[in-house]
Each structure stands twice: as structure tokens, then as C-alpha cells.
């Protein structure tokens, strides 16, 4: 079983502010972390390995310092990692990114065929959730997004059953391998790396693949290969909240409760309570 996990280094967005004047992200001094959705993806891959054996390879595209997230995944237990890093990959949108990742996976699978690709559901810096499906489409893999549980996996029949977490319900689907899964954040609790693993991962040199190696058409990668342009980034204005105060009068009515109900009715969040 060979599982590839795609991870991304992102700025810790809880610490990112938007510059009100220039409308751009203020990234100074903001630490970079592994995309929080990707840790459960790594964990899911490691769980597959724990049960069925095989190998987990981590793949990431980003600047040279993005090897930190690959090291983190290796510290958690992944076997290998490859960093896709080249100036010409920079500035890519989801279309161009999935192109590079898909081609890198093709390259990897020449030596070791890939059975499952796992991505986080989305990243916290872009929130598009498009790269995973993009990779699957380009590689012709079956895909299951929003997976919060792998129900079963049959290696001989090459079948996998997963549970997808949709807005109001779960969907259990079965598909055949090779396939790509995107994982929900609460699918599992990512393991904490041991210190010997951390020291081992720190000491590794992570191979870097650039475009001399991948030889992709420059028009399909990086900024040139990205049809998306960002017009403006802004923080939506927060609506002011309102506080209703009041105590119950002892006869089952309370001013605060009544006011809240009335407003919820007005906003059509609940149906009229008058007839109830």
C-alpha cells in the first residue's frame, strides 16, 4: 500500500491581520505552520499504514523553507517526503498547483505505484478545497471529498468504503483504488511525534524537485498558469451584537427571552411562536 499525502505550509491565520489601508495580508512576524487540515490527512495515512503496512510519502509545494511541514509529517511517522520548489511554481492558483502536484505524483508512481492520495479538506489560507479534486481529475483517480472516516479497505479487491460528512447528513460511498480522499479536520486526532522521530526528521535532507526535473510547460504553472486573480481582500464588517437583559418575573415570562425570540422571528430564523 503506497499512500501519498499532500501537505501545505500556511501562515498561522489566527495571527494574520488584514492591513486596512492596502487590503493585503500582513504577514510580518507571522509564523508558518502545517495547514491544520493536513495533520488529520497525515494521521489518516499513518493509520492505514499501521493496519495494512506499506509506505507513506509526503508531498508539498512551496518555498524551500516549506520542508518544515514535511519534516513534521515525517516526525509523525511518514516514511519519505519530497518538496516541489521552484521560483516558476510560485504565485500559483489551485489550477496551476494541482497541475504541479499531479505531475509530481505521476513521477513518483513510475517507481512506486500510488494506491491512495490523501489531502486535507482545504487550506486555511485559501479555503478553496479545490486542489485535492484538481489532482484527482488530472490523474483520473476516483475521488471522495469531505471524508471523516474510512469505513473499510479491501486490498485484494482494491475497494475502499468511506464516510463523507455533508452538511446535514453522512454519505457512505464505495469506490475502487487508486483514489483520492480529502479529509475533514475532525476525522481523527493527529498523533504527537516522539522525540527520536523528531530528531530523525530534523536530520534528514528532504529532496527538492524543481521544474528542470519535472519539465512542465511554463504556461501551465506558477503565476502564468493561473487564471485566477485576486481583486481585493477584506475583512467583512462585523455586525454589532445586541444584549438583552432581564430576569424572569417568576410567572414564566422573561423580558430578555421574549426579545430574543422576537428578533429571531423577525430575522426569519425561527417561525412565529405566537401560535404555539
Amino acid at each position, binding site marked *: 500500500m503506497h499512500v501519498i499525502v499532500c501537505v501545505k505550509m500556511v501562515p*498561522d491565520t*489566527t*495571527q494574520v491581520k488584514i492591513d486596512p489601508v492596502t487590503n493585503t495580508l500582513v504577514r510580518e512576524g507571522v*509564523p508558518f*505552520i502545517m495547514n491544520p487540515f493536513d495533520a488529520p490527512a497525515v494521521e489518516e495515512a499513518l493509520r492505514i499504514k499501521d493496519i495494512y503496512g506499506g509506505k507513506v510519502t509526503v508531498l508539498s509545494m512551496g518555498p524551500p523553507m516549506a520542508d518544515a511541514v514535511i519534516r513534521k509529517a515525517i516526525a509523525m511517522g511518514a516514511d519519505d517526503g519530497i518538496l516541489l520548489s521552484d521560483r516558476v511554481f510560485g504565485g500559483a492558483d489551485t489550477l496551476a498547483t494541482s497541475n504541479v502536484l499531479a505531475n509530481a505524483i505521476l513521477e513518483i508512481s513510475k517507481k512506486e505505484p500510488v494506491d491512495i492520495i490523501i489531502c486535507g479538506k482545504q487550506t486555511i489560507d485559501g479555503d478553496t478545497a479545490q486542489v485535492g479534486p484538481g489532482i484527482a481529475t488530472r490523474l483520473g483517480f476516483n475521488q471522495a471529498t469531505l471524508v471523516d472516516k474510512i469505513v473499510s479497505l479491501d486490498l485484494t479487491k482494491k475497494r475502499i468504503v468511506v464516510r463523507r460528512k455533508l452538511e446535514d447528513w453522512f454519505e457512505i460511498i464505495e469506490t475502487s483504488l487508486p483514489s483520492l480522499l480529502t479529509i475533514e479536520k475532525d476525522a481523527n*486526532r*493527529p*498523533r*504527537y*511525534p*516522539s*522525540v*527520536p522521530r*523528531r*530528531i*530523525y526528521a530534523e*536530520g534528514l535532507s528532504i529532496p527538492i524537485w524543481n521544474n528542470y526535473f519535472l519539465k512542465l510547460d511554463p504556461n501551465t504553472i506558477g503565476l502564468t498558469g493561473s487564471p485566477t486573480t485576486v481583486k481585493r481582500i477584506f475583512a467583512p464588517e462585523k455586525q454589532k451584537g445586541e444584549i438583552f437583559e432581564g430576569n424572569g418575573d417568576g410567572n414564566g415570562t422573561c423580558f430578555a427571552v421574549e426579545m430574543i425570540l422576537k428578533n429571531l422571528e423577525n430575522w426569519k430564523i425561527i417561525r412565529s411562536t405566537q401560535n404555539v
Partner: protein
Amino acid sequence: MKPVESLIFAIIFLVAMVVFIRRIYTLINLISLGNWEYRFDRLWERFKNMVFYGFLQKKVLKKTFGFNHFMLFWGFMVLLPINLEFVLSGFFPKFSLSFIGEFPYKLLNMLADIMSAVVMIAVIFAVLRRVVIKPSYLESTKEAYIILSTVGFLMAAYFGMNITAIDPKEKDLILPVSEFLRTMIISGMKDSELYILNRIFWWVHASLFLFFLIFIPYSKHLHIITSLPNCFFRNFSFPTSPSKMQFSKNMSFGISKITDFSWKDLLDALSCTECGRCKASCPANISGKTLNPKEFIHTLKKNLMENGLYIISNRPFDTIGKPMPVLNYPVPLIGNGEGSINEESIWDCTTCGACVEVCPVFIEHFPKILNIRRNLVMEEVRFPEELITFFENIEARSNPWGIAPSERGKWAQHLDIPIFSKNENHEYLLYVGCMGSFDARTKKIINSLVTVLNTASVSYGILGSDEMCCGDALRRLGNEYVFDSIAIKNVNLFKKLNVKNVITICPHCYNTLKNDYRAYGAEFNVFHHTELLNMLYKNQVLKRDFAFGEKSIVYHDSCYLARYNSIIEEPRYVLKSFTGKLPLEMGNSKKDTFCCGAGGGRMWLEDDAATRINRERTKEALLKKPNIIATSCPYCVTMFEDGLKELNVNENIQVLDICELIVEGLKIVKDTEKEKIIEEKRRVANG
């Protein structure tokens, strides 16, 4: 004594000696399975320690019943030469110690006679204590009764021998007890009868004596032999800081098997007297948790016995005859079986140090627990689940809640507190800590301190959003790897800013900055705010104000202040300075304080509602019927407030930090000589 008797005795004696010496040899072998640790410095001081704590039993005497033990011990010391004479006279019937001089010899015999009676009485007391009083921490084992009765009968045989002696060797010996018994019991017996009786007593005495000799190293009374060296090799100071670790490839971290301990740890395990004092003062145990420090040490001993004996007889040797490591140990260190430590109990410890404080033979329990945590966290990755988020939050955001570091200085936004800087010549760095920065309750404390500092015109600054967690809880929970990186960053930051003096409100930050960071090259002075307030009152920068005269205040000592760092009088002086009287004292106070339950990282662990430590402590405080529970630790404040809620206390009892109390009654002298006083203060601060 007939020659044939001497021969028989010689044979039995030699057999007994062989058994005894072999056992001692094995025990030394077992101890040397531990890792090397240097404990041979300051030999004279070590010797003095052995005299005071080993021979004079200073710590034993702290408890009421310690006197009984003292008497038993000194009875033995006096009887030792007499028994030597006894043994030698078994070989050479003419042998006598009388060559030491007539007077000393007489005195020795008289003392021995009296002490034998004292020992008998002490034995009776010890038995009564076990049968009648039955203290919960003292398990009455069969072993204890065997020992006590052996000692009792040994003394009886001694008297028997003395009173049946037909012609006492030296007629003029003064043996008051024996003489008394002789007139009471055997007057009028025939010499031939006496002779037979005398021989019987002699043989009973001889066999009991030899039995005792062999039994000691096989029983808990091994401590008779081991506790003296254990006092000799003790740690001179309270173990405030675990050792700094190195991190590199192919190393193992923490303790996973008995031979990972140091030889001194193993000697600890063999020195336990099973007195139960540690158990009786362990807050975790008292509140019903699994941990029992006495059992912990005893389990280490069992584990060492099982595994050590196996290793000694099964270890392979390499070609040059050096022993090679044994890979599989028959009894795991952590597990549920006999001789293994229960894993849950490892997480129960608050590192409060009460066990170490009371142990009469200087056994150090919780440092061993920490070393086991290190292994569980760093190698096994086995720890309570809630700690994952805690560890990750501190590593990524440098605070337990994972709040953005940029928010750290927010509490001070409207207070106009300067950021600490070299150029401003700030005298003190106010290290706020995670609790002070983010915890709503603790923010009030830090605000009060700021008011006091401003009123006293102390020159200080804060780090704002550059401040980082000190890493105390990480270290006490065994995550040394992340602690190490935090400590390096903090010490570097402080050095870069040329920090000379640090103030902190949290005893845990205090201990970490002051003691843990030493090994990382920290050279700054650290002051707990109670120390600084004490100076301010002593120097009359803060005026004494007796506004609290009517309210009764009970003071709770934080373990990390009182026990770890001996800050005991300072907070009391401060309280006295503005209330006019010393605070009420709980039963367990000062060095014998009882933990609030939050130390050792337990603040961040889920706590089983049935066994909360803070409830025990709050109950103890309530016994004093206080209006105010005063303390000087943010954890303790939280724990008492929770305790009051859990106990559904209706009376209006406040839990306040000392500096909050001051703010309420603050008055300041606008002393013209203030400059001079500040100068003086600076001098004190700089040491």
C-alpha cells in the same frame, strides 16, 4: 561454655556470616546496575549529614512517634559492642571488652542494661501502635511483627543470660535492671539449675542474634544498613530542577526500565523504611488518587529485585569480559502486575514535594516520577489525551490556550506600562506569565501588582507580545524537548535585553526562571512579588496600614514558593505589615504545606471529580473560619475558588492574592528619603 558448644557456635556463625555477606554483595551489585552519578563532593558535609540525619535521626524525630524509633536505634547502637563481645566470647569464652578500661567498660555495660529495657518498652509501644492506633499509612506487615518480636525476645534473652549468670564475669558490673530482675525472679534457685537456664538463654540469644543478622538484608529492615549511606549521599538541596537533557540521535529519553535510574535512585529504593510518612502527606493519595509514593518506592525495590537478580545471572559478556546489556526484563517498569508501576499514578503527581520533605532518609520520589513521564511523553508518546492540544499550543503559540501571541500584551493596553528596554534603564522586568496575560482572574492580580509597583515608583517594564511561556508545565509533564527549546529562546531574549532583575507573580514561573534556567546560562535575579513587596515594606516605601484588622486571613503557602524556594516569612511579613497581625496558619503550612492540586502540570489535566485535591485543601482552610484565603500563586487562587464552589460554601469568603489585598488598603509614604531607599533596594537586588 564447653568447647563443643564453641565449635557448634563457630559453624553456625560462619554459615550466617556467609549468607549475610553474600546478600550484601548481591545488593551492591544490584545498586551498581544503575547509571553513574557523581555524589562524592563535599565529603565532610556529607559525613555531617549522616551523623545528624542518620545517627541523630533529626528528621525521624519530627514526628511524635519518631522518639520511639530513636530509642530503638540508640538501644542498638549501645548494644552493638556488647553483642560483638558476645559473639567473640562464643569462640573464645575468655574474651572480654574490659581492655577498654575499667570505667568505660562498666559504663558500657550499665548503659546496655538500661537500654535493653528501653528497647523492650519501645518494642511494646511499636506493637501497640500497630494493633491499637493503626495509623492508615502504616501497613502492619507480618515482617514488622517478626522483627519486633525478634528484637523483644533478643532483649529478654539478654536479661535471662544476665540474671542466671552464676558468677557474673566481673562481679562489680553495675546492671541495675538485671539486678532488679534477679532479685524478683530467681532468688533461691540452685546453681546447677541456673547453669542450665543460662546456657539455654545464651543459645536463644545467639540464634536470635544470627537470625536477625540474616533477616535484616532480606527484609524492610535493610534500611538499617542502607539508610546511613543514603543520608550520606543525599541531594544537598531540595530537587527544584530536573537535570538538563541532551538531544541527539540514537539516544533514549527518560526512564523506561529500572536500570535507567542512577545508582543513587536504586539506593533510594533499597533504603525505604516503609514508615509511610510520604504517603501520609501526599495530596494525591489523600484525595483518593492512585498514586502512593511509598508504594511507588517499594515497587521500584521489587522491580529491582526481580529484574536485577535476573540480569546479574543472565547477562551476556562480550569477548573481553565486559557485561553486555540485557534486552528483555522479566518485569516491566510500567504495568499492572506485581513489581510494576501503575501508569495512571505517574500522572497523579503534582510534584508538590511533600514526600521528599518528610522522608526521614532523603528518598526523592517525584524526580523519579518526572523521569518516567519524560519517557512516556518523549519516547512512548503515551499521555493523557488532553495534553496533545496543550503541548501543541505552547509549542506553536507559546501559551496553553493557543491564543495568538500578538494578544499577549493586550491586558496592559490601557495601563500605559512601558515595554522593557535596555535604553530606558528599567530596573525590573515584570514577567507576566501565561496566566497573568490571558486568564481573566489572574489579570486582576497582575493589575493589582501594577498598581502597587506604580505607587512605589518601581522602575519596570514588560515584554508585551514578545513574552513567551516559561515552560514550567511542559517540563513537569515530561515534555523536556519542547521545554528545552523554550528555555533557550527565553534565556537568549533576556540576555539580549540585558535583563538583570525579574519580578513574577507565579511561583512556577519563579522556580523555572530562577532555578531551571540556571543550567541554560541565566544570570538574572528573580523575585517573586512577595519578596519584592517584603522589601518595599521593610524599606518603608510602602506604608504599614492596619486596615484589615477585623478580617481574619488565612494564608496558604504555594509548594513552589515555600517548599521549593523557602519563601515563607516574606509573604507573612507583608501580610503583617498591613493587617497588623500574622495570618492564621493551617495545620499543614510553611514547609509542610499541602498542595492546591495544580502543580506539576496538573492544572492542565482533566481531574476526576471524585478525587480533587483542591477540595481537601479548601476544607482545611475553612477549618480556620477565615474571611479571606490569601495566597500568592495564580494556580492556588484558581484552585481555592473552584474548591469553594465545589463545596458549595455560602459564606462570603474571598480568595485573594497578597498584592490584591494590599491594593485595597494601600497608602504610601511620600518619603523625602525615597531616593535613598530605592538606592538601598537596588543594592539588595543586586546582591
